[in-house]
């Protein structure tokens, strides 16, 4: 009897106790990177936690293992094949890196967690997309994850925002940003702040109205929305016809990431073209806040200031660029600035506290305008009626530039093109694109270039030319290197001071909208680029 009781006791008490002990021996769960880790930017060399590596949008890494002297030995160590193609566009992602794992999004809303040592996937995600995508079907791209703790955030081609568990790829929540059937989609890498996930929307080629949204990372609840096209009677509506229908389809997409100044608590975000793109007769006026840079209070989404680069745009020159933040000495005084290489062909420096224009100077041969007036407005010389102007893809585009602080150089991909615009009144219908005309591009006159601009003067310091207009992004490293990609598929390294090409590797597909990133792994500096259907990791040979 006693024996029997002991047996029961063992089973009833000791076994569950053992189970509890088993649980207790499991070490504390990893909680993932915090807001302070993102804020610290490049402090931990093994991490790359936000689209540009830090909030400034500079894409300038402090890593120095790969140098102008040894970069010739750089070689691929693995390639990851996505298994999904990007009709008409590029593989545009910037992977995030944490603790030896890369988190990357792909075209057609694929996503992966990848072992940075081998290129093997821990998990893969593919969204079941509806068959009647609108903008999302013409540009089935995605630029990357945002990350906070154990969560990843990704936007989708059917205009949702998803939260993932980064360990499993499981969806934690899924919220609708806008009705994709109207023409909306989303493609950017979410900007993650302490308690907010900031995203924008695509679809300015349709009768849509753009916005910038903030969401609660834990619940997906929307915290605020900033409309990029004012409502009737709101400030800015005086730059549009007095017609609510025109405002409601005014465009102003926000499809490229923004940057963030934690001290000023301001978000900087570029706004896209007004709709219809090429046909301006239906929307006389400057059409705020299209083609502008806006500074928003991160807590409330309220507009602090704006600067419009291209009033009354007729050429689809969205201002969806990575705003680059830097603290530089300006005319002898320290100044907090934001820099933009714009699709309209001008390089701009603005005071990022006030929005005051400090510099605006063309970096291409554009005949549209060559200077700004005293109010910072372009003096338009050729609206397209006096010969060709840059094509709708613009003098540069969303492919990230880089700022090299020690050299005071802003390095960007420039496109020299020649296009004739034939505007035509469009029909407006939900889910139907309304470009408002057609464009003829003279391909023979086009070429591309990597250009380094002196940020104090906007003058060209050096350039490296490519055979065709290029869509590759740029990264710099503190060892004096520039990494960039071209339309012919080359991934390249340059001397940052001189622009001399030091290394190239043919990836086999154009590098389109993607920019490099870099991080340390087991004492080795890894450089990554997305191209075609592949993500490739490069490093120096092991000793």
């Amino acid at each position, binding site marked *: 009897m006693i024996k029997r009781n002991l047996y029961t006791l063992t*089973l009833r008490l000791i076994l569950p106790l*053992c189970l509890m002990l088993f649980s207790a021996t499991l070490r504390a769960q990893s909680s993932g990177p915090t807001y302070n880790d993102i804020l610290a930017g490049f402090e931990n060399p093994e991490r790359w936690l936000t689209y540009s590596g830090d909030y400034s949008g500079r894409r300038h890494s402090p890593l120095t293992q790969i140098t102008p002297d040894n970069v010739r030995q750089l070689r691929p160590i693995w390639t990851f094949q996505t298994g999904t193609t990007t009709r008409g566009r590029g593989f545009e992602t910037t992977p995030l890196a944490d603790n030896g*794992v890369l988190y990357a999004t792909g075209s057609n809303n694929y996503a992966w967690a990848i*072992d940075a040592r081998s290129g093997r996937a*821990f998990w893969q995600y593919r969204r079941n997309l509806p068959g009647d995508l609108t903008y999302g079907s013409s540009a089935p791209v995605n630029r990357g994850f945002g990350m906070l703790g154990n969560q990843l955030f990704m936007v989708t081609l059917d205009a949702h925002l998803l939260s993932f568990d980064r360990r499993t790829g499981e969806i*934690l929540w899924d919220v609708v940003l806008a009705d994709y059937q109207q023409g909306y989609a989303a493609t950017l890498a979410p900007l993650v702040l302490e308690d907010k996930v900031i995203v924008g929307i695509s679809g300015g080629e349709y009768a849509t109205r753009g916005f910038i949204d903030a969401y609660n990372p834990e619940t997906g609840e929307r915290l605020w929305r900033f409309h990029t096209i004012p409502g009737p009677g709101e400030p800015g509506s005086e730059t549009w016809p007095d017609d609510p229908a025109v405002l409601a389809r005014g465009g102003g997409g926000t499809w490229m990431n923004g940057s963030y100044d934690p001290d000023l608590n301001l978000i900087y975000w570029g706004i896209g073209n007004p709709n219809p793109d090429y046909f301006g007769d239906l929307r006389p006026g400057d059409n705020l806040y299209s083609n502008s840079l806006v500074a928003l209070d991160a807590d409330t989404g309220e507009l602090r200031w704006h600067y419009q680069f291209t009033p009354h745009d007729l050429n689809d020159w969205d201002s969806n660029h990575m705003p680059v933040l830097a603290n530089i000495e300006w005319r002898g005084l320290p100044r907090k600035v934001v820099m933009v290489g714009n699709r309209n062909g001008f390089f701009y420096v603005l005071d990022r506290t006030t929005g005051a224009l400090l510099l605006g100077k063309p970096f291409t041969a554009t005949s549209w305008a060559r200077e700004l007036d005293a109010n910072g407005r372009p003096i338009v010389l050729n609206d397209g009626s006096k010969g060709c102007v840059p094509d709708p893809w613009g003098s540069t585009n969303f492919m990230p530039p880089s700022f090299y602080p020690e050299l005071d150089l802003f390095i960007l991909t420039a496109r020299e093109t020649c296009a004739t615009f034939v505007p035509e009144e469009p029909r407006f219908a939900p889910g139907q694109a309304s470009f408002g005309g057609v464009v003829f591009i003279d391909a023979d006159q086009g070429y591309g270039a990597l250009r380094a601009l002196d940020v104090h003067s906007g003058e060209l310091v050096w350039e490296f030319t490519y055979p065709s207009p290029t869509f590759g992004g740029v990264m710099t490293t503190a060892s004096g290197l520039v990494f960039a990609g071209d339309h012919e598929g080359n991934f390249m390294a340059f001397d940052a001071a001189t622009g001399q090409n030091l290394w190239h590797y043919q990836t086999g597909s154009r590098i389109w909208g993607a920019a490099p990133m870099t991080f340390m792994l087991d004492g080795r500096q890894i450089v990554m680029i997305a191209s075609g259907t592949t993500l490739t990791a490069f490093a120096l040979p092991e000793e």
Partner: protein
Amino acid sequence: MITRDFPRAPRKSGGTRPLQATILWLAVLGALLLPGMASAQTVNPLEADPRAAAAGGSLYRAQCATCHGADAAGIQDIQAPDLTSLWSRPGRTDASVFQTIRNGIPGSIMPPHSFTDTETWMLVSYLKSLDAGSNREQYAGDAERGAELYDSYCRRCHRVNSSGGSLGPALDRITASRSKTALQQAIRDPGTSMARGYRPVRVVTGDRRQYRGTIKSEDAFSLQIMDESENLRGFRKSDLISIQYEDRSLMPRFTPSALSDGNLENILTFLAGAADPASH
């Protein structure tokens, strides 16, 4: 001296049941018991036979899975619907599912099928066994008590409704995708039923650090695991001193004395409720 020790993964021996024989037997049974059964029959004559769902399952995998998916959850790309919650829709009966399989859906990609009546009822039985709503009826325990037990025993490693651990598989739909017997067995003796992506491994690195976890991916030169702290970790095998593949699941055995039959039923009842869309 560093010794390299890479034991080979033990191969699982084949143990498939003769499903075809089962089908044949049921077909004979059907022929004997249901002479002249018209397709207008409104009650599934095989409803009480537990073998019907299994036989329907093998028919399903051969004839239906291409469009509706191996898990019957549907394939959105080709607009093939989810078949795992058919009975939760208003007006749906065994007979209406029978008719849809028999006649197809005119104007859609779903064709008519020439299964015999018995085969069609087997498919109905199988689909009904997957149905979360109807499955719920199989579980007659106390869901609230089950939720408490789940929290103390399972939640550390498993997720339901996106809450819980990641070391084991999510269990939201587990009662819809696996039979009650299989689930009972998996809880009593987890070693016998490891899901893909959850095979345990123990590695020792060159600097003598040990990690235990589940294998997410592997090739000849590298290994990707989730460790017991739920970190994703990748290793080059050349950096490892040893890799030990373990035969038993990381999940502990829950013997009847640790978890009574009643409490096991309570946990399954809780999980069945979690899988039922109506309960959300």
